[in-house]
């Protein structure tokens, strides 16, 4: 196992060090047309800090991230409270919706909302009918539209994380308050929310960071609307310029990583602090349910509204687009033209079959690699083997890289690598595995730390080697965590588009990047059909993940 430990650490060092080194190097040198580098220069950084566009983008990024995090946390907190602490009928629907939303690719979800709120969408149609205006009333390609869509995209995740907070809160604090004569409302204000506040704040910061790193919604909403955030700026410097402006993109990336790293440091401090208030008693622990009385129906209405907004609207719009031979506004008349043309086309296409196969390889390959690394790495870290600290830092380091930046780093790395990996599906698997490792490794460490160390010591005392102990005792006992880890990483790796876009080549198209290209080309019908078919398949994976996570109580972040 010593060999495995050293090997794992070495692999991570060998990937991450050149990656960061290359980014910094590129940001400090002019990249020539032939790929060689000019003399050292700080002009890219100087250029950044003296350009109005950069500061405009920074302001955009902050506004967008703050707005989206606010939407997600407010909606998520209300839902989590209803789901965990009230007796509202139908509250388990919140979980079903949240889990189903995990299987929808970001691009597809965004497209669903763009169809709903866009120029030819039903919202504008209704508003136009009311006002009698000939032009569309609302424009979705704005900052508000971007904040709304990204906020809704994060709501299910915020809900799942917050539900865990409410679920684990010890009811005896609230009971003590009620015993002292305080009302339910006073107890909510003075005890429940106060106790949850540090955790809610920490999670708000986490969502804020994740939104800063996001790419899909800004690419599909902001870029057509001609306003940019830092991630789309990086993307544009590479793919919107000829020749690509590697220097500026790298300088931007370095700034982004720096900011995110600082924010993550704050987050880790905040979240450590927030757990101090969480006393979880083992015996007879049950959270208290608040009886809502007359408000129960209002809560149920909110639950149903949530299902309609999170799943119903995008799904309906996509189905509408998929069933019509060309896109038309919603009307009864159009329904006579319904056909299965796009579904047939999608099912019969050999390109699509390759894309599906690639995506399956990407998902399975990434999930398997990350799970293997997380099982061994989690064990080394949780049991404080020599070098555990370093391994922990290395495995969580990719958290500080927005996917688009990680993609840029890997692009540089693969172009310079002696082995030709550029444009292959293998390159995507490697990059995705590094990107997903921070999430996977947590399943490993949490899984192992829930095991009593004596279970392993008993094996060692029986005369078994470290490797035997790991394979025969540790792995079988943390298997539920590892399966949940595999499923989650599978979903994460096939959902995002930034990495596949940055590393795209002729032979590694995956579903997410195919959907993006179809949207760029205006092939809405094909996009919708393909996205729906894929989402259907992913639903099975996400339900399996949910079942396991629920059963074994592994948390989601």
């Amino acid at each position, binding site marked *: 196992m010593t060999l495995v430990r050293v090997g794992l650490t070495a692999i991570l060092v060998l990937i991450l060090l050149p990656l960061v080194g290359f980014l910094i190097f590129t940001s400090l040198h002019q990249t020539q047309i032939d790929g060689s580098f000019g003399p050292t220069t700080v002009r890219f950084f100087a250029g950044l800090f003296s350009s109005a566009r950069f500061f405009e983008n920074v302001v955009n990024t902050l506004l967008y991230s703050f707005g989206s995090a606010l939407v997600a946390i407010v909606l998520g907190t209300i839902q989590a409270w209803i789901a965990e602490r009230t007796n509202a009928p139908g509250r388990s629907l919140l979980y079903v919706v949240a889990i189903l939303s995990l299987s929808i690719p970001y691009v597809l979800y965004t497209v669903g909302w763009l169809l709903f709120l866009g120029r030819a969408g039903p919202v504008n149609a209704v508003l136009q009918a009311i006002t009698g205006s000939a032009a569309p009333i609302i424009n979705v390609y704005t900052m508000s539209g971007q904040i709304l869509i990204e906020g809704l995209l994060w709501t299910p995740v915020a809900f799942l994380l917050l539900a865990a907070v409410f679920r684990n809160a010890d009811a005896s604090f609230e009971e003590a308050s009620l015993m002292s004569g305080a009302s339910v409302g006073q107890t909510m204000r003075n005890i429940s929310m106060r106790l949850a506040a540090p955790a809610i704040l920490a999670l708000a910061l986490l969502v804020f960071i994740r939104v800063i790193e996001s790419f899909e919604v800004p690419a599909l909403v902001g870029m057509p609307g001609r306003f940019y955030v830092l991630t789309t700026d990086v993307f544009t410097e590479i793919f919107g310029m000829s020749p690509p402006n590697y220097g500026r993109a790298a300088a931007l990336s370095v700034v982004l990583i720096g900011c995110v790293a600082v924010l993550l440091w704050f987050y880790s401090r905040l979240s450590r602090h927030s757990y101090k208030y969480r006393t979880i008693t083992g015996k007879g622990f049950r959270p208290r349910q608040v009886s809502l009385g007359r408000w129960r129906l209002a809560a149920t209405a909110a639950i149903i509204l949530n299902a309609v907004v999170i799943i119903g609207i995008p799904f309906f719009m996509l189905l509408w687009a998929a069933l019509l031979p060309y896109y038309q506004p919603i009307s009864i008349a159009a329904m006579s033209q319904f056909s299965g043309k796009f579904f047939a086309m999608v099912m019969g296409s050999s390109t699509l079959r390759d894309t599906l196969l690639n995506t399956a390889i990407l998902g399975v390959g990434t999930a398997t690699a990350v799970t293997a690394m997380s099982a061994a790495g989690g064990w080394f870290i949780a049991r404080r083997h020599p070098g555990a600290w370093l391994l922990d830092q290395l495995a969580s380091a990719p958290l500080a890289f927005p996917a688009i930046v990680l993609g840029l780093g890997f692009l540089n790395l693969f172009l310079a690598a002696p082995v030709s990996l550029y444009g292959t599906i293998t390159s995507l698997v490697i990059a995705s595995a590094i990107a997903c490792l921070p999430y996977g490794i947590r399943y490993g460490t949490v899984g192992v730390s829930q095991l*009593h160390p*004596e*279970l392993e010591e*008993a*094996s*060692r*005392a029986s*005369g078994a080697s470290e490797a035997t102990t790991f394979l025969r005792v540790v792995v079988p006992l943390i298997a539920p965590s590892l399966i949940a880890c595999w499923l989650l990483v599978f979903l994460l790796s096939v959902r995002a588009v930034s990495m596949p876009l940055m590393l795209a080549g002729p032979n590694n198209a995956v579903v997410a990047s195919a959907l993006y290209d179809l949207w760029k080309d205006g092939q809405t019908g094909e996009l919708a059909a393909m996205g729906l078919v894929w989402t259907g398949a992913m639903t099975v994976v996400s339900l399996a993940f949910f079942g396991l996570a629920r059963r074994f109580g592994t948390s989601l972040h």
Partner: protein
Amino acid sequence: MLRIQGLRREFKESGSTITGGVLGIDLTIEGGEFFTLLGPSGCGKTTTLRSIAGLEKPDAGRITLGERVLFDAAARVDVSMQERQIGMVFQSYAVWPHMTVYENAAYPLRFGQHSKLDKKEVRTRVMDVLEIVDLASFADRPAPKLSGGQQQRLALARALVHCPSVLLLDEPLSNLDAALRDQMRREIRRLQRETKVTAIYVTHDQAEALAISDRIAVMNHGLVEQIGTSRAIYSEPANAFVARFIGLSNMLTCDAVTSASGDEVTVKTAIGELRGLRMAGHDAGKDVIIRPENILLNPPGDAGVINRINGRIASVAFMGELTEYEVDAGQNVTLTVRGRDHTLTPGTEVTLGLPVDAVKVL
């Protein structure tokens, strides 16, 4: 014979204050002996046991098993734990929940570094050992389906299946309820006698230690306070700590030895002069120890008891066979007395008789 020399393993908390561990101990444990490490939590008993097992790496010292050196800090010898061939029973039992009873017990034979048995021999050995602990009929049952006592027996079977020369037991009874604890204690002792394995037993429960052990090492703050048989430790405690830790004792400070003839001395205490016996190795005389069950309640005048003290019963606790009285002996001294006289009530004036051999002067 297991020999521990100069064993040190310090735990330091951020800085240099020593927060626990073992601060240099020497022990010699004979083959086939049932040896107990007894002490309050944090005294270093578990650290000692884990050092023998190889789960803990000592800072200094030497551990030998017969001729074999298991650990020697000076010579940089540290035999890995899978090579030590010891058996260990853990406080949590550590019975693997993903295996059956048979698989649990067979593990050391199937995956241990030394055992090279074929399947048939493994089966015979495992079934033999399951027979000894009375679990043979449960062989195919999933381990989590066993009761606490059965899991304990399975842990014992697993520790003994590869015939180790030393069996280590880390507070194995602490998770069982009182009735089961007594039964398992006898069971462990019986198994140890049958297998003639050298057993090293860690506990903080002095009654358990007295009942089960051939010899006991009483530990405190990382050091050994006294080593001896159960009887010796109980009746001749080496110091105040041991006296207080083993059994219930009345402790009085005494001023000085006023006169001495042989081992018999007279000391001055808060409740007057007492005639007692000086314990071996103690000249000065600082503490007086009197066990509650050795104090006589209202002894007849002709009983020849020299030390007589008058007091008043402060409280009564009926304990079944005996009744425990708290007796106010004046001068802010309260003596605990246990006797078979169950009739006395609070407020009653009593005379306490302290036989000379019951008054132990340290």
